């Protein structure tokens, strides 16, 4: 006889696999404590700000120590590092200067960004009150708060940034090009503008091409291999081009001359083992001793 029971059993089985499961019960509940360590975002209305405070005055000292090497004492930006201040009323100019003061719509973004990503060489190393203080100081550099100001979790959301109304949500497509196929324009209107020659790396496809490096910063006549130069740029430049943590600047002849008095072996040794603000191998323990020594030679060559 036909076994109805069996058929119903099959039907049930089919249903439970085919029905799209709302929940797979994978993963574990995330406790508040676990979340708290990673939940670092801050919103314009102040949601997410931890309790704390910091003054412009405290911020100045911290900024000079941890930020000024790259961003300049007044936020003007050393070399090609980002500017943090200035540029008011330049957004319509030929060369707009987009800074915290001239462009950023909310002060919360500054707090959030410094806290999550700065200083560049040591992200998420600042204590909460230090972030308040440095944020206050960067706002002060932009003349948005006075020298007596103390920033706290309660007043941050009340700070009005000059460009807060400067943004609107993307309204593209904003251009309509009709799909013309024939005689689409007056040939007389065609003007050909050529590429600026010599600033793009082209030596990989042109006999007379260049590597595009000369245009960057000239390091003419060095004997280091490209590998050494590249590793310097990835592992050492951040401190040694900027003088961060009082690192001797590459190219500063006097600073290196003093150090050379101790002899080259001692210099190598300090680079390998670390000394004061200089981490062993610049923090890149994956580098071979040979590589580090070659980089030191390169740095010395640029500093003689």
């Amino acid at each position, binding site marked *: 006889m036909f076994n109805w029971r069996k058929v119903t059993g099959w039907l049930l089985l089919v249903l439970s696999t085919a029905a799209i499961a709302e*929940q*797979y019960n*994978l*993963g*574990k*509940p*995330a406790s508040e404590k676990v979340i708290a360590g*990673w*939940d670092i*975002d801050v*919103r*314009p209305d102040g949601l997410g700000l931890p309790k704390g405070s910091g003054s412009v005055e405290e911020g100045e000292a911290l900024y000079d120590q941890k930020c000024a090497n790259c961003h300049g004492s007044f936020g003007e930006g050393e070399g*090609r590092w980002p500017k943090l201040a200035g540029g008011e009323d330049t*957004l*319509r100019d030929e060369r*707009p200067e*987009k800074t*915290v003061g001239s462009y950023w*719509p909310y002060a919360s*973004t500054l707090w*959030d960004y410094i806290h*999550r*990503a700065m200083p560049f060489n040591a*992200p998420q190393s600042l204590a909460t009150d230090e972030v308040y203080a440095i944020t206050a100081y960067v706002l002060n550099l932009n003349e948005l708060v006075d020298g007596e100001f103390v920033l706290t979790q309660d007043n941050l959301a009340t700070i009005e940034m000059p460009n807060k109304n*400067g*943004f*609107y*949500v*993307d309204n593209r*497509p*904003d*251009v309509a*090009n009709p*799909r013309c*196929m*024939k*005689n*689409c324009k*007056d*040939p*007389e209107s*065609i*003007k*050909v*503008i050529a*590429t*600026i*020659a010599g*600033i*793009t*790396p*082209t030596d*990989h*496809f*042109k*006999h007379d091409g260049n590597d595009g490096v000369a*245009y*960057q910063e000239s390091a003419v006549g060095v004997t280091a291999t490209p590998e050494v130069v590249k590793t310097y*740029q*990835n592992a050492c430049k951040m401190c040694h081009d900027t003088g961060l943590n009082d690192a001797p600047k590459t190219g500063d002849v006097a600073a290196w001359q003093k150090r050379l008095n101790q002899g080259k072996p001692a210099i190598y040794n300090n680079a390998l083992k670390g000394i004061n603000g200089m981490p062993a191998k610049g923090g890149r323990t994956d580098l071979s001793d040979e590589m580090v020594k070659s980089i030191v030679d390169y740095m010395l060559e640029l500093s003689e």
Partner: protein
Amino acid sequence: MNWFSSTEQQQLLKTLERESEKLHFTERRHFLKNALVMAGSGALALHGGQALAGNQNLPPNVPQWTGKLGDGVLTNPYGQPSKYENQTIRRTVPWLTADAISSISMTPLHSLKGIITPNGLVFERYHAGVPTINPDEHRLIIHGLVDRPLIFTMDDLRRFPSVSEIKFLECPANGGMEWKGPQMEALQFTHGMISCCEWSGVRLSTLLDEAGVKPQGKWILAEGADGAAMARSIPIEKALDDTIVVYAQNGEALRPEQGYPLRLVNPGWEGNTSIKWLRRLEVGDKPWHMREETSKYTDLMPDGRAQQFSFVQECNSVITSPSPELPFKGGKGWYEIEGLAWSGRGKIKAVDISFDGGINWQQAPLKGLVLSKCLTRFSTMINWHGDPMLLQSRAVDETGYVQPTLKQLRAQRGGNSIYHKNAIHTWKVNANGSVQNVQLA
């Protein structure tokens, strides 16, 4: 200075006459004399094929490699390209950024065929270098306006139903160096901030269902585990639509440069929203206005205001061959003109090609797969008579949007918006076969 030699001018004239037979104007010659701004020199040394006559590896001789045994299996446990392909590499323009740790490198589009970008050639963009993450110690947390805050291991994530989709990823700054004028002498630099991979992972909607988004949940903050803790706000509509939480690319685990072990992919949207090294997703009721959606990745307009949350990568295309890196080396004769088109709004519907700087256009066939939000190939054959050309491609997507001219874009957005330059691109093909990046004013 003369762009074109007088013979070149004559040849260009001939091309234009041929291409624009139906033009109703009389002074074509006059046009040519005046229309082309004569500037710069066209001198270009091409890598010509060297004469190999008498080479012992060419027929009728038996080549060296035939007369001996090659390497056995597992000589390269992870295979590498031929040593003769050592110029197929990512490159950068060194002066673009202050430091290699927050910088960009570009994909060598001229060296690639088809639509898939090999994993080692996918363009790179980081804000704090590539972190080295142990996958066993990596976690993804979903919290905020959800019923069940959850924490996942990589093993957990691999148990969910997975999807695999081929999607392009493009940096919104692709081509952005050229808003004000042509600067880059190579395709790799004008268009190389794009890649296209098969991405595998779990739909974000699946994970959000697992956590149970509360009705007030309208935005999602995605955050990376890198030193930049790169973070972007993403509207819930996108998150529930086609966003993928990805752990594999082109069949293998993500590369560290692309977010190993876990990243987001927001198909069709600017690359920086596809957060790499993904560690956290928070559901909220408003966007967060992170640095990467205020200070950066906003488009400054001529009136001094800026477009924000400009997510979509609009329809775009470029001819990849010929290009500055792939000139017409062999003199007159047949060549394949090939290129790539893509749109963040869906499929490519058509691509048109112009040989005369956009006076006349003809439709070029699409080839291979034509998928949504995916690189699409187009190609056509030409019998090149050695005439100079102003070569362009213009893509149309399934919404009917037609790729605009640079003039149209500039008229609308000025020259300071940095991002989202999807204008029709022009290559000038010279009589000697060399190719130069130019703009038409």
